């Protein structure tokens, strides 16, 4: 299992596109929104939590199809399915690797982009914490979508259509944490719900994803 994690990280590092693309996209969102909305600090401060969360979500979405598609094409998935490690474990590890190369950099970069968007002082801690709790869930949910569409020729667009509705609860609770945190209100309820969704997705979805992979492999 560890070997699989190391291999996936190594592939992301050498092939490129893993870290860079998602981050660059996130930065683009944070630059384009003020250009579209206008430079008033108060307006930006108001929409900053939502924009940052939507940006992180879309950046996460960008690289989802790479989770399984490459391994499907070169036959690795066939061989992993017949290997002695459970496919559920493979899915969980690959989702974790996706989070390490996509989600974690987003979490780390978010405060910098918060500055660009005039996020109120009190919001930074909650922004990082909510992304830290939410993005692993995004990776697990995204892996499910990627597993559903792995055999399809033009799965990319379909993948977005399938995954984005599933992202709704995470987005709502995540952005709510930042919004309330920035306004100095209590954040316990949305924070706990966000953590609950992520933990639930991590625990249950690998089984559904592995099932979808087996269906697509046969």
């Amino acid at each position, binding site marked *: 299992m560890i070997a699989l994690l190391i291999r996936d990280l190594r592939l992301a590092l050498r092939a490129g596109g893993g870290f860079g693309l998602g981050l660059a996209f996130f930065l683009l969102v944070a630059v384009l929104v003020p250009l579209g909305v206008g430079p008033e600090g108060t307006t930006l401060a108001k929409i900053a939590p939502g924009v940052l969360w939507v940006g992180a979500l879309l950046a996460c979405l960008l690289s989802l199809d790479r989770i399984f598609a490459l391994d499907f094409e070169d036959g690795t998935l*066939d061989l992993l399915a*017949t290997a002695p490690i459970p496919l559920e474990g493979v899915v969980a590890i690959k989702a974790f690797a996706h989070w390490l190369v996509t989600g974690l950099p987003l979490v780390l970069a978010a405060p910098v982009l918060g500055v660009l968007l005039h996020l109120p002082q009190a919001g930074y801690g909650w922004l990082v914490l909510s992304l830290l709790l939410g993005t692993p869930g995004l990776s697990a949910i995204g892996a499910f979508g990627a597993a559903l569409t792995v055999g399809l020729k033009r799965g990319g667009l379909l993948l977005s259509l399938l995954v984005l509705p599933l992202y709704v609860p995470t987005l709502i609770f995540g952005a709510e944490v930042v919004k309330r945190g920035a306004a100095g209100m209590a954040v316990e309820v949305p924070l706990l719900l966000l953590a609950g969704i992520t933990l639930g997705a991590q625990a249950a979805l690998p089984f559904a994803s592995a099932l979808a992979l087996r269906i697509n492999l046969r």
Partner: protein
Amino acid sequence: MEFVIEDLAVARGGVCVLEGVRLALSPGQAVILRGANGIGKTTLLRTLAGLQPALRGTITAPPESIAYGAHADGLKSVLTVEENLAFWAAIHGTSGIEPALVRMNLADLRDRRAANLSAGQKRRLGLARLLVSGRPYWLLDEPTVSLDTASVALFADVLRDHLAAGGAALIATHIDLGLPEARVLDLSPFKARGGVIASRGFDEAFL
């Protein structure tokens, strides 16, 4: 422990292609699968490897004993030969990729990235994976594609050693491997007639 197939029927794209396949493979034996293109050799091997469900029949094999060698080798082009092989060794919980590297004549190429290998070298690396899997029953789908004569002979030697060590192999191939002791199983008699429709055992055939 034997590898036994009884009254097996397999389907491709919802249509039954082979039925009534029976075969027993004991340690030390090799069986060559023959049959025209499209008869269902790959489908049969995938079913035996557990990648797709059988329509009917039983497959009895010791647990975790099958290594499947597909058309695609599952190599990552940005990893080196050594890294590729070490990954599969780790996945299968075996150690020591050195003998496999030497055996498949890859020792000099160990630090080269898979992207820079020739087709035949990639194939040898794919076959080396079988050695590090440590599993006794090899299911091979056209293992000699893009290998030159010398490499085919090398592979035949490896196969012979595997059989002598108590392993077994089921090989779909068109060329002569130079294994006179291998049995040949012609699949033509098992070709499904009348197109039995894949309905997974319920009374719901759509006809």
